[in-house]
């Protein structure tokens, strides 16, 4: 087939949103406009009226979750942390975005384990994004910062892996904010209520760390911990990693790398996909080994979200 028209022009004809559909839905949305304009500014409850019956269920669940967390936040003020927040003191509700900071992950009311990936976009002074995690009693259990890809007038992306430690499952809050260049106060505070869950067997650490079948973004389903494996070993699981690329390495009993490969998950860069790959290796004798599954950071090439599976390597 020969078609010399520009690709974009041809693609434009496949637009799944037809003008007729857009026009009709715009017309149908007229009552919503009036409803929105009747909303008092900052009256969060008004959001509920705008959503469909299906979405109402989700909102109700959110409100219940907030109801559990807010009393704690009110009864135990954040030690003056929010006194300078221009958005107002107290954590009335999850706020995934302030004027200058938008948090894309984790989503409000999700369950997180250490290390939690906090990511989003920000336009903050010197691109410095501060992150804190507060536990169920409002103690600061993590306090760190990261650098956005752009700042002081332009919006950049940020992503930080924040380790924390809790002994029991509990509600918590992740705060992302800017430290004011004027007076050092916290400004543009974003609050994400979450459930903090302890990692079984301790905190996951990079290569050489304790065994774990799952990190925040990679979950390995096979092989199981301490399984006996022979070549080729099938490594499978789910992952939400940059460009869906999952890296896999096998170390033998003396920590030599005896296999080093990668595979592509069915989805990535923001969505979770499945992966499965057969990794051949060769050992002369039965010995302990480790299978590492990880993501290579697009920023600096470092290895992150490492999952370490101790296994017994058996000659084929």
């Amino acid at each position, binding site marked *: 087939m020969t078609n010399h028209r520009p690709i974009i022009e041809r693609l434009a004809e496949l637009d*799944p*949103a*037809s003008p007729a*559909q*857009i026009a009709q839905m715009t017309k149908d949305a007229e009552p919503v406009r009036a409803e929105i304009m009747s909303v008092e500014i900052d009256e969060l409850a008004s959001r509920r009226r705008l959503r469909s019956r299906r979405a109402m269920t989700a909102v109700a669940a959110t409100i219940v979750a907030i109801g559990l967390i807010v009393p704690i936040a009110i009864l135990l003020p954040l030690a003056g942390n929010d006194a300078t927040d221009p958005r107002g003191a107290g954590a009335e509700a999850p706020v995934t975005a302030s*004027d200058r900071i*938008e948090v894309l992950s984790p989503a*409000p009311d999700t369950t997180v384990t250490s290390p939690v990936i906090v990511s989003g976009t920000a336009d903050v002074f010197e691109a410095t994004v501060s992150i804190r995690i507060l536990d169920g009693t409002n103690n600061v259990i993590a306090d760190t910062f990261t650098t956005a890809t752009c700042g002081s007038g332009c919006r950049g992306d940020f992503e930080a892996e924040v380790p924390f430690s809790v002994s029991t499952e509990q509600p918590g809050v992740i705060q992302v904010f800017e430290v004011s260049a004027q007076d050092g106060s916290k400004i543009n505070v974003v609050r994400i209520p979450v459930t903090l869950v302890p990692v079984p067997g301790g905190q996951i650490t990079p290569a050489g760390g304790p065994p774990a079948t799952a990190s925040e973004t990679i979950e390995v389903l096979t092989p199981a911990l301490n399984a006996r494996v022979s070549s080729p070993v099938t490594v499978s699981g789910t992952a939400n990693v940059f460009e869906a690329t999952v890296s896999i390495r096998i170390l033998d009993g003396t920590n030599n790398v005896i296999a080093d490969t990668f595979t592509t998950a069915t989805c990535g860069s923001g969505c979770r996909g499945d992966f499965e790959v057969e990794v051949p290796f060769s050992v002369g004798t039965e010995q302990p080994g480790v299978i590492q599954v990880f993501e290579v950071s697009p920023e600096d090439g470092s290895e992150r979200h490492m999952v370490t599976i101790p296994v017994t390597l058996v000659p084929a």
Partner: protein
Amino acid sequence: MDTQRLARFEHLWETLFPRVLGYALRRSDAEEARDVTSETFLVAWRRLDDVPRDDGALPWLLATARGILANRRRSAGHGIRVGQLLAETRPVTSPDPAEAVAERAALAAAFARLDERDRDTLAMIAWDGLAPREAALVAGCSPATFAVRAHRARRRLAASIAVEDATALEIRRELS
């Protein structure tokens, strides 16, 4: 109520509601698109002072819609589905219907083979009608980065079309 505020919101709604709705429709089903667009304009109403004037308003609204969609997708456990409804796209008129059908099928299949980011990048240009500078604001990257993404996405779509061409040719033969 501040009449200037009311007038400004009215203007935003009149001029940009269809654009935001279109953006959402290309990435979700009709019901969700309606909810996402309503929610986007609620955010705009509450933060009207933050909505840039003139040309900056559309990227701001689309970036907000994008964030709302992403939050919903994360809750639902899957990614943004750009153009997943391609199979149901409206028909195009052509002097040669058989050729048009084959061409559309090949292009749709080639587009569907791209990864999500490439589809989103091309959709912002071809369907949402955004200039590269605006699309970069929506995607949250620099214009230079977006230009590189768009160039690569076009190249990958062209390569994907080449793969589909043989199939499309067969379809055309069958139809003729």
